């Protein structure tokens, strides 16, 4: 994948926002790839967890806000507990989701789930899905 990097992007307020929301210092990551190696959701991701961190370091806002990866993450925290640098990758994923959700860009449209299907799901599935994927 080709991406354009620039001083302007790296200094964009987006990087600050991701760091603030996630509570993580992105520059601590040295790209070992342990998070991506253990992630059970990588098969559904367009950019891998370590690349999400790298893109965030570089301020590649559009790439991150339009990626599938953050929605494939189920916050299982396998990456967090294995990161040798102690970075909470799942928190960074959540920060990117939150930036979109706070602009009312929901990932799941509750109205599109047929009522018959809705009643099949236990409350725990619906509540957690809507908590994570709607604003």
């Amino acid at each position: 994948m080709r991406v354009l990097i620039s001083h302007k992007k790296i200094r964009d307020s987006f990087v600050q926002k991701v760091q603030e929301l996630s509570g993580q210092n992105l520059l601590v990551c040295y790209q070992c790839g342990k998070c991506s190696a253990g992630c059970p959701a990588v098969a559904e991701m367009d950019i891998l967890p370590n690349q999400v961190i790298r893109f965030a370091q570089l301020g590649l806002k559009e790439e991150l806000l339009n990626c599938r990866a953050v929605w494939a993450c189920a916050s299982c925290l396998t990456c967090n507990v294995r990161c040798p640098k102690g970075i909470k990758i799942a928190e960074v994923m959540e920060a990117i989701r939150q930036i979109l959700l706070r602009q009312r860009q929901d990932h799941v449209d509750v109205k599109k789930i047929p009522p018959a299907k809705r009643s099949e799901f236990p409350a725990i599935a619906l509540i957690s899905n809507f908590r994570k994927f709607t604003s």
Partner: protein
Amino acid sequence: MKLAYYPGCTLKSHGKNFEDSALCTLSKLGIETEEIPRWNCCGTVFSLVTDDVIHHIAPIRNLLRAQEAGYDSVVTLCAMCYNTLKRADARLQESADVRDKIHRFMNEEKTNYNGGVRIFHYLELIRDEIKLDTVAAKVVKPLHGLKVASYYGCLLVRPKGIGFDDLENPMTMDELMASLGATAVDFPYKTECCGAYQTVDKPQVVASRTSQIIKAGQEFGAEVMVVSCPLCAFNLDYRQRDVRQNEPDFRPMPVLYFTQLMALALGCPEASLRFDLHDVDPRPLLRKKGLL
């Protein structure tokens, strides 16, 4: 220790088999619990971003209810409730700013919650307070010959400092199964995520995880899988329907709550096991093993 019980949203409906079986085992073990008065949903997931304090109110309110009713400990059955209550409690205790915000959000309450209610998962309570030997001594119908794979999932063990067992190789449920007389089967997917809430919008993703997890258990000889989370239970049990459609050779495997096997071994009535709530019926296997 004065122990309150927090059921959470699903234990009264889809997870009634979890609740009924667990409550029967608690009474068999002589443990008194009372449901927290006026409990509310915990929100199911802990908010991971730093500024999202309002979502911690739901779990904290439950802890406040327990404290008001004079309890110093709360036991949960659901792994997600356990995680959310415990993490919200830790967040409130570690940050004065968060604590202050929560107090102000909850200013209609008569008292403030400052931490202090201990949150147990039932498995943790068994391991640390009740003790496995006590459970073993109460077994009336040992589960001899039943090969059980224990699936812990994510939220019983992660993150570090919240989970009550080893991050990579938890053993509490395996040890419990062994103390009930069953054969605990070790398998490599015991902490692999089932896809959780993705089951609503990406059911096929969860079906493929279910397939991996169930087949890994079978490869190591398991006949049944036990879980401690109603969402894992739904995914691993119900999603086997999709797996069967995708893979004609797939052999379904019953998925049970650990409390159902405990209840069986401790002599609880079959009505408390609520096998009618399962998609893959565990009864044929349990009858074959002479357990029903």
